[in-house]
């Protein structure tokens, strides 16, 4: 008992207790503050899945071996398709759709490997030769949207492949895939889904980081082969400065210019529209293009939204509160 009354022993005892309580408290905080979140690196994995599809597609002689003749034919056919739909393309069209004058870079994600939401470009290059083939979606810069960087995701992966030359020899090559999720791929997927499912499709818009964000969506030069965004809602189809275009054949977009303010919570809704639906051309009064777009949305939503029994003629985008 004598030691229990020893002040030094008592102080040390208290110190030990405090120390033990502190450790338990600290551990409790660590355990209780633990939160689990999952991130599955979607784009990187998608690149590998996409490569599987391309390397076993109609371009392949056998798995992993791409045919030079089939590649040439695919690039030529894609370029012809663009030339036929957009004859006499100017520099801007060539920039958006690919420099097809030289049979290269067609902005086409082919039917044998494409994805609604994720856009991609493929670049196949011979390692010991000088031939290369590029095709696919090309995203634009960031500045025109006024959106934060996290809305533009991309990934890049390379895969070793072989190219079978016309004489039957094999040439070592590399296929580089760049995959993207950005506003353009989201909008085009929304339009594609609205047309395919005949149901409205919604996309929560990211917060606008500038005073006012504008989303202007229309087809490329009024043909139903590409879905594009343009820089300014006041530009007509002839002088529009296209920001990004994605190949989406057969989907007619009713041109619209929609806007939302900084920190406003909005969603973009794509509605499938029945044949014969009347709407006003936003370029008939460019200064009021946003009001006309809103009026088009209001009138078409009232009576012209397609259902299962209807043929979908076109898709209209509307901005609505979340």
């Amino acid at each position, binding site marked *: 008992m004598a*030691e229990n009354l020893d002040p030094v022993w008592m102080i040390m005892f208290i110190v030990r207790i405090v120390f*033990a309580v502190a*450790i338990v408290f600290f*551990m409790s905080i660590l*355990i209780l503050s*633990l939160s*689990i979140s*999952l991130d*599955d690196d*979607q784009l990187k*994995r*998608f690149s590998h*899945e*996409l490569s*599987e*599809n391309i*390397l*076993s*597609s109609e371009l392949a002689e056998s*798995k992993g071996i791409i045919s030079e003749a089939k590649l040439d034919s695919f690039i030529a056919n894609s370029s012809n398709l663009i030339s036929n739909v957009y004859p006499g393309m100017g520099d801007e069209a060539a920039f958006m759709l690919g420099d097809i004058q030289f049979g290269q870079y067609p902005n086409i994600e082919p*039917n*044998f*490997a*494409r*994805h*609604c*939401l*994720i856009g991609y470009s493929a670049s196949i290059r011979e390692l010991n030769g000088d031939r290369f083939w590029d095709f696919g979606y090309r995203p634009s810069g960031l500045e025109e949207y006024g959106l934060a960087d996290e809305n533009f995701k991309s990934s890049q992966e390379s895969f070793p492949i072989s190219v079978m030359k016309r004489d039957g020899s094999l040439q070592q090559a590399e296929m580089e895939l760049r995959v993207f999720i950005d506003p353009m791929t989201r909008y085009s*997927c929304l339009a594609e*889904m609205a047309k*395919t499912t005949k149901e409205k499709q919604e996309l929560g818009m990211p917060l606008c980081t500038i005073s006012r964000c504008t989303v202007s969506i229309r087809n490329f030069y009024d043909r139903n082969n590409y879905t594009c965004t343009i820089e300014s809602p006041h530009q007509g189809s002839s002088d529009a400065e296209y920001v990004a275009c994605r190949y989406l054949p057969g989907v007619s977009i009713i041109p619209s210019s929609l806007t939302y303010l900084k920190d406003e919570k909005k969603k973009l809704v794509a509605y499938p529209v029945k044949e014969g639906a009347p709407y006003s051309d936003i370029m008939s009064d460019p200064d009021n293009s946003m009001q006309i777009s809103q009026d088009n949305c209001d009138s078409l939503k009232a009576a012209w939204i397609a259902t299962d029994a209807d043929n979908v003629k076109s898709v209209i985008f509307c901005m609505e509160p979340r």
Partner: protein
Amino acid sequence: MHGVTSIRNFISITILLIMLVGFASPLQASVQDVINTDASLQAELIASKINVLRAAPDGTGTRISLPDAKCTVKFENTFLTITYQKAVSSPTTVTKHLIQNPTVIQSFEEECPNSFFLKKNNGVISVD
């Protein structure tokens, strides 16, 4: 006195270890629960398998195990939808798109938890 101190230390360390072991099990369960009930992640995992199967030659098959949770998975040609029933809130539905290629997927619906075999024959993927 050294003996008493040693016993105290031994008891303290034992209690600490018991606490750690006691926490480990619920922690593991909670991690597994998060994985099983994360609709987006589960949809991604299933979509990945089907994307690879779509690129595979005819005759290839794969087994898909749905998570141990209350959910429904619906497959249509270019997308799959997974819906989780929640006890206290409205259901969570996630739609994931599949890579589009000439391979066709027969539409079907499965309830969780479940395991089924998908096979590709003549360019068509169906439940075997």
